[in-house]
């Protein structure tokens, strides 16, 4: 963990120092007051409520949406990934088409599409269900991520030698059983670093959901700026940058460490 630890220490100390330096350059002798202002608004930015009384918005919402989207994308991605390696070629073709369309769509475009394609309400099993901006955001984020996960899945499975399939078949295993008992257990460790990278991208991508009207950290930040005046804008945005960094940076370091470990310790 040596080289990763050094990078982590440098980043986790260096980046906040740089951001404080930036604040000082912008705000001059009002830097202290600005820091106090940020500290005061922190509960609001983190949870969407001024006193941590509810967890319905803000940065927590970004984390929640990213986790929900990752879970959905994981399930969809595995199904799509199985489609990509199906024996039946029309399934392969269709899955490849869907995967390529979704993977090459800008996330913001998919989010807008969800915003206008999904109705405000929907009748499911005779019950009217409201589709909130948060639900639309999760749907919009999970689609391109699912396509990426499908590709990671396919790559991981194809990295396992065909002799494993052949010997498993000769022992009577069927295709899905081979995936489950023999190929996936070997392929998953290879896939984890890539999955973590795509999660970090997804997490950073949650900042885009502001266009759907979901009250994520950017939405809350904009509300604060509107009431407190535009002079606070730089401080708020720098602070939001810092929050994203704090969450995504350790993931990136952990990913790199895992990559190195999996690369050197062969099974």
């Amino acid at each position: 963990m040596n080289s990763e630890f050094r990078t982590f220490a440098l980043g986790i100390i260096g980046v906040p120092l740089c951001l404080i330096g930036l604040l000082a350059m912008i705000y001059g002798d009002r830097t202290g007051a600005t820091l106090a202002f940020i500290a005061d608004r922190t509960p609001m930015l983190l949870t969407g409520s001024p006193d941590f009384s509810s967890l319905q918005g803000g940065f927590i919402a970004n984390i929640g949406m990213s986790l929900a989207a990752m879970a959905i994308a994981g399930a969809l991605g595995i199904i799509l990934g199985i489609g990509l390696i199906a024996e039946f070629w029309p399934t392969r073709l269709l899955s490849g088409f869907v995967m390529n369309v979704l993977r090459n769509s800008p996330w913001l475009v998919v989010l807008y599409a969800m915003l206008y394609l999904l109705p405000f309400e929907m009748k499911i099993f005779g019950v009217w269900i409201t589709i909130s901006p948060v639900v639309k955001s999760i749907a919009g984020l999970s689609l391109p991520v699912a396509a990426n996960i499908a590709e990671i899945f396919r790559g991981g499975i194809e990295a396992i030698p065909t002799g494993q399939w052949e010997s498993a078949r000769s022992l009577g295993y069927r295709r899905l059983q081979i995936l489950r008992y023999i190929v996936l257990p070997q392929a998953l460790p290879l896939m984890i670093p890539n999955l973590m990278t795509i999660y970090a991208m997804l997490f950073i991508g949650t900042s885009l959901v502001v266009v759907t009207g979901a009250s994520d950290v950017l939405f809350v930040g904009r509300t604060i700026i509107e009431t407190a005046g535009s002079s606070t804008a730089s401080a708020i945005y720098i602070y939001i940058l810092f929050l994203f960094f704090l969450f995504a940076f350790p993931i990136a370091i952990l990913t790199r460490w895992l990559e190195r470990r999996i690369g050197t310790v062969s099974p």
Partner: protein
Amino acid sequence: MTLSGSRPLIEMRDVRKSFGTYEVLKGISLSVNDGSVVCIIGPSGSGKSTVLRCINGLIPINSGTIRVGDFAVETLKSDKALIPLRHQVSMVFQQYNLFPHRTVMQNLTMAPIQVLGEDPRKVRDRAAALLAKVRLTGKENAYPGELSGGQQQRVAIARALAMEPRVILFDEVTAALDPEMVSEVLGVVRDLARDGMTCVLVTHEMRFAEEVADEVFFTDRGVIVEHGPPATLFKSPSDPRLKDFLDKVL
């Protein structure tokens, strides 16, 4: 069923197989009696591995018939339909193909438990006995990556035996081994042959074929050029291609 004692265990009749436009098997006919040891020899690319893969349904054939016991292999289309056949026909590969994420013991027990649905305790007892038979007692909890090539191949043979098959197909099982490990693997195969296990061996070990085989088939370019008991085939070959081949390898 009353006939199965007298008729061969495996019968291939005029089997043809093409990959794309390239015909690999051009009408192969052979039969293997229950309890006998058959060796297939021939130059590289002549279709020996393909013959074995057809017998246990790993690859579909274009025409002809393959019967193993009471199964008409060419009529079994899905992996599910092939399960009973694969219960009877095991295969050992040149590259061992053990499951690296599982211990030796698990490699032996997983298919009987997961595919055949057998009682785990019984399977484990059987697996322990098989490991003793291939002289690997004590390696139950090792992972394949921790074993030598010869040891891995003996695990692969034990794994094939754990399915309690009627016949085992061996595809050049010593070809990837260092010379000093060849004899330990051949020793295990020899024991099986003596115990009356039906074996079909693709091999380049001519001396071993001569010693254990009841019948030897010589393939060249997708056809069986000559076959017969090893004494005749090796000592007085009649086909010029076989003479040529034996001159090169002996």
